[in-house]
């Protein structure tokens, strides 16, 4: 691996993003963004809808190349990796997709077993026990033989979570992990995320909107808005709302630096009300 692909990074930083700039469909998503994600910690990425949180995760995992900037994951510059090197890196990353992305022709068991079957030659009994252990952790051991179309949205998310953690990866990215979970499942998943972090030292990135849930597990939060890192700090610090961004975001107000309305022409003019009284 050449020098450009591997850069010296302090041991406590797993992901280093420098000068990240992205324009999608004419809209600036990131404008020279810098951020460091610490190793072995749970970092939450929050922000208004459509602000580029999932896009950032796609950059970090090499699914989408940025227009400019560099992204180092475990010392490797993702932007410059070839396909084989990228796949080698991804073997150490678990990714929970927003829409679960389960393989619809496979049962719950086979979905969780899929990464193991593809990359390891484990004896069937070991593989079975490993998969059942992960399914037990997400509370779905009894659903091992069900097909994805027989599951609710929340159950599908939990299966996808089991699949993401089945190889005990170095990094897990959870994209909207709490959507569709009932309070019991939510509580158990939060405990699982914390346990994985504490016992195995797995670095976790949480992309979510549920502030109460994030506050319980996250060590720090990045608030992305307007193509920049609008705020960064511990959950308690950000919740105090000391900047206009954090104040609006954490209080949920419509008025503030983050517009609630998507850019649109004048409301009255669009409804044909302009000059109606004249």
């Amino acid at each position, binding site marked *: 691996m050449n020098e450009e692909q591997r850069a010296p990074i302090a041991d406590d930083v797993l992901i280093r993003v420098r000068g990240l700039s992205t324009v999608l469909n004419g809209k600036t998503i990131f404008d020279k963004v810098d951020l460091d994600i610490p190793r072995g910690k749970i970092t939450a990425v929050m922000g208004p809808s459509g602000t580029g949180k999932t896009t950032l995760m796609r950059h970090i995992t090499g699914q989408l190349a940025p227009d400019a900037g560099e992204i180092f994951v475990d010392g490797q510059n993702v932007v410059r990796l070839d396909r084989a090197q990228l796949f080698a890196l991804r073997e150490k*990353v678990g990714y929970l997709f927003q829409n679960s992305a389960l393989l619809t022709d496979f049962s719950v068991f086979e979905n969780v077993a899929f990464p193991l079957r593809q990359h390891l030659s484990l004896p069937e009994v070991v593989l079975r026990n490993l998969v059942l252990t992960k399914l037990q952790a997400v509370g779905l051991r009894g659903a091992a033989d069900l097909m994805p179309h027989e599951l609710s949205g929340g159950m599908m998310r939990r299966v996808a979570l089991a699949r993401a953690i089945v190889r005990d990866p170095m990094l897990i990215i959870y994209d909207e992990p709490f959507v569709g979970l009932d309070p019991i499942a939510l509580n158990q998943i939060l405990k699982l995320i914390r346990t994985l972090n504490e016992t195995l030292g797995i670095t976790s990135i949480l992309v979510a909107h549920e502030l109460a849930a994030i506050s319980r597990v996250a060590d720090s939060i990045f608030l992305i808005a307007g193509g920049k890192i609008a705020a960064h700090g511990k959950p308690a610090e950000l919740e105090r709302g000391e900047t206009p961004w954090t104040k609006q975001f954490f209080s949920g107000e419509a008025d503030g630096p983050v517009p609630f309305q998507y850019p649109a022409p004048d409301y009255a003019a669009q409804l044909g009300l302009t000059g109606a009284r004249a």
Partner: protein
Amino acid sequence: MSAVRKPSYLTDGIAQIGACSLFLLRILAAVPRSLRHFRETVRQIWFVGAMSLTIIMTCGLFVGMVLGLQLYYVLSIFGGTAALGTVVSLSLYRELGPVVTALLFAGRAGTSITAEIGLMRATDQISAMEMMAVDPLAYVVAPRFIAGLIAMPLLACVFNALGIFGAHLVGVSWLGLDNGTFWSNMTSSVDVWKDVVNGVWKSVAFGAICTLIATFQGYTTAPTSEGVAYATTRTVVFSSIATLALDFVMTAFLM
């Protein structure tokens, strides 16, 4: 002057052909890696081959019966009904077998390949595989491509067999042509290498082009319901045109 390029069917078409050619190279490069997914390839051969048998056998039988009926009528004008077996078999081996099988294959298996891969794309299953460091070209596309290459000539052979059986049914059993004449004229005038094997080569080529188009359309579809619907339609249209055009080119070279 506007910087936005005006849409052009010609340039877009050439770009599509170029992209499809590059996709073929990527599939071929992925074939060695797909060999470790041998079970998936076997499953796909069953899906595109065995599952297409009903439509291929039914259509082969009826095409053979119609050929027998029409050609018996035409040949009887010249008193040449004894040549029925020869004419039917040559028509099937050289042209109708490979071409009609390919058209049926595009409608039955090609559309389902496109829809399946398109839905996998739309529901992020392809992205999920990439994130699990599993190459979708090796796991999803290449097995289907190999299956098409293997299944198409086998299906064409079944089509030919049922076609000849249908012509025999009409010519011999129904219209009273002599059984010995039917078979002996056929076996004496059909050349295995020139007629049968050339037809098989055509089938292999049609299998490649139909499966390439089906997988390409599915893999590159817009991740929407409408996108998958359009991609499925394009598979049938482009496969049919490509099959008939390639048939002309191959016939010109193989004659």
